């Protein structure tokens, strides 16, 4: 996927001015955030489970080569074709070849962020293949020509009115006078449209929440059942997953599943959890004739030996973005690439380069709410700071900011001079601002005073007053 990370500030400004988006985002605190809190409260061992989940992933990542090979062996033994893709381009080529070999005219897709990462749809469409997203949110985003704004709720930026308008615009074969005022009516209509696509599809492409090394299975969790129809009704099922999705055992899957849905939507479990092991066997009632798994690296193995290995624990629940006040203010598109929110602010610079995505790790107050809710205990603020350090080393931040910072640091390292300068500055500002108590505008403080007053200092520094008190003068 092309990135728009470099125009983050403009993207954010536009998002803040977008009244429709702001209405859509306003539901987060009472929706996903409240649901997670309730689910956590219902499970006394939730916090302990986070430690267990983290340890499973840390262990797997420490032996990733071993578990990936074990997965490949077991998947192959079950009849899967396993393909390794070092880059996004390789993954696209492999999938396009599978589709061509299958003579595919129509491809259905379950929800997959990896397919977004590699820009799969555009490639398949350019090759003359019709691609239909079957997750409702993904379908909405697709018919609008947009990208997902959230990793589990791709259309969270949309309101119901927008969806109704889009359906009326696009589904012109349906009667004009139909009623679409209820969410259930919108879902019903999407179902009606998608059912024919499921039945006609030649290839079904899904992601994977897990790859299980001990059995060679892939696992998807969904709430709509669309993933199951995608993968079992088409002749060919293609799974596309990144290397860190592997876990050693089914037991590990079940442990992490206890965290995943609770963190994501506040459900105990998602509605459907589906294990796929190989293609259809003679005794199976249904399933695809061929089953391919495309395993993508795309820069992740480079992260293994670094501090950023920890981010590979991510299970893509979206809790970090649900709880992020920055995400809550600007939504997902402003981040400019596949993964928004705190996880994106760590992952994106690692995958596409810190210089082109420098705003992402910088645009955080380090409030720590993301780390607090992350089921895998990823230290997201710490990792964002590492990106800031790399960016600073490479000359990031504006010239004015860097000069200001260096001047301030130079002064702060000379306490005597610093305190003299502080006294003078505070005396001046105090004299100017004392009567009104605050400044409505001030040179060099425009970023602050555009939106809020700057409280005036009291006029003397603490160090100055303390020295006087020590010397016996009255305060």
């Amino acid at each position, binding site marked *: 996927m092309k990135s728009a990370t470099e125009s983050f500030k403009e993207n954010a400004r536009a998002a*803040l001015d977008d009244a429709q988006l702001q209405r859509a985002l306003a539901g987060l605190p009472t929706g996903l955030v409240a649901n997670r809190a309730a689910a956590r409260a219902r499970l006394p061992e939730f916090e302990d489970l986070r430690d267990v989940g983290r340890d499973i992933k840390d262990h797997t990542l420490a032996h990733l080569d071993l578990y990936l090979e074990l997965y490949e062996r077991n998947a192959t033994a079950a009849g899967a074709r396993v393909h390794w893709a070092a880059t996004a381009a390789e993954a696209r080529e492999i999938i396009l070849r599978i589709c061509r070999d299958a003579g595919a005219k129509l491809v259905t897709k379950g929800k997959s962020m990896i397919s977004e990462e590699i820009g799969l749809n555009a490639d398949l469409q350019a090759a003359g293949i019709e691609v239909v997203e079957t997750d409702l949110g993904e379908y909405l985003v697709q018919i609008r020509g947009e990208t997902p704004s959230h990793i589990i709720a791709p259309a969270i930026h949309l309101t119901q009115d927008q969806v109704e308008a889009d359906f009326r615009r696009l589904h012109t074969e349906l009667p004009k006078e139909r009623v679409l005022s209820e969410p259930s009516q919108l879902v019903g209509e999407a179902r009606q449209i998608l059912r024919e696509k499921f039945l006609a599809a030649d290839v079904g492409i899904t992601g994977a929440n897990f790859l299980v090394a001990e059995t060679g299975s892939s696992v998807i969790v969904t709430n709509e059942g669309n993933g199951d129809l995608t993968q079992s009704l088409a002749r060919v099922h293609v799974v596309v997953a990144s290397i860190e999705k592997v876990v050693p055992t089914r037991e590990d899957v079940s442990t992490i599943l206890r965290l995943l849905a609770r963190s994501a939507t506040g459900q105990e479990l998602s509605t459907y959890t589906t294990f796929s092991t190989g293609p259809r066997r003679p005794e199976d009632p249904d399933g695809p004739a061929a089953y391919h798994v495309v395993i993508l690296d795309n820069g992740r193995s480079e992260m293994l030996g670094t501090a950023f290995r920890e981010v590979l624990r991510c299970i893509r629940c979206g809790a970090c973005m649900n709880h992020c*006040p920055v995400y809550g203010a600007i939504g997902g598109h402003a981040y400019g690439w596949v993964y928004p929110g705190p996880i994106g602010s760590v992952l994106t610079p690692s995958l596409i380069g810190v210089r082109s995505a420098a705003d992402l790790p910088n645009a955080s107050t*380090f409030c720590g*709410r993301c780390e607090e809710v992350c089921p895998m205990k990823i230290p997201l603020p710490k990792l964002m700071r590492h990106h*800031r350090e790399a960016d600073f080393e490479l000359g990031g931040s504006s010239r004015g900011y860097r000069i200001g910072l260096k001047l301030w*640091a130079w002064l702060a390292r000379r306490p005597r001079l610093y305190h003299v300068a502080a006294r003078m500055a505070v005396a001046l500002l105090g004299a100017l601002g004392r009567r009104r108590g605050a400044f409505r505008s001030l040179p060099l403080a425009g970023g*602050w005073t555009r939106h*809020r007053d700057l409280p005036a200092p*009291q006029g003397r520094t603490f160090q100055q*007053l303390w020295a006087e008190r020590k010397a016996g003068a009255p305060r």
Partner: protein
Amino acid sequence: MTGPLPSKPRVGLFVTCLVDLMRPSVGFAAVKLLEQAGCSVEVPAVQTCCGQPAYNSGDRADAAALARQTIAAFAGCDYVVAPSGSCAGMLKLHYPGLLAGDAEWSGKAKELAERVHELVSFLVDVRGMETVDAEFKGRATYHDSCSGLRELGIKGQPRRLLGSVKNLELIEMADAEVCCGFGGTFSVKYPDISNAMVEKKAANAAAAKPDLLLAGDLGCLMNMAGKLRREGRAVQVRHVVEVLAGELSDLPIAGSK
């Protein structure tokens, strides 16, 4: 701490640069409370800033230099106490990592970390303070600043002491634990996003209809006070220690006569 606690511990006050520059009355309120808690207070003159502006901008070298300066300044104190969860968190949790590769200073950073506390949690958790001798007639609400809350676990301590302030009615606003949008340099690097965050905070604070909005970090307080005043809302804003120390003679933050 290992060994017996001194009966009258020597507490080094880490003033914080914002209190030093903007609101020295918070520093004096802190001194008063520490003395009430049986401490003798010292204020090393060679302290300036904890280094967060550099640290959070990715400038490790300057941050490390300021960390070494701060560690040296407080070498002789039994405790180092700051009227800020953010700065205390920096000294306590981030200095050791920042200086981890520095053979001379890494041990000193760890040693300092053991002695560092945020003021209100120090009073309650270390000094066993249960009540304060103060009065405020009206409704007050408390904003949980992020570093204090999530790095240092400060949540109940300020509420507990506020509960003992005569005639003060403590009320909770919605989303008290959500960031106010200050974030140090964030507020000037990303002013529009910061503004959207403080707008929500100001709305939540005002909706609780308090007379007084309190918090333990001056950065957050200046942000919230500046926004409330710009919006013309009649909520006074003060650092929590001003109320706990009964030091209300100075104007509120961004308040005018």
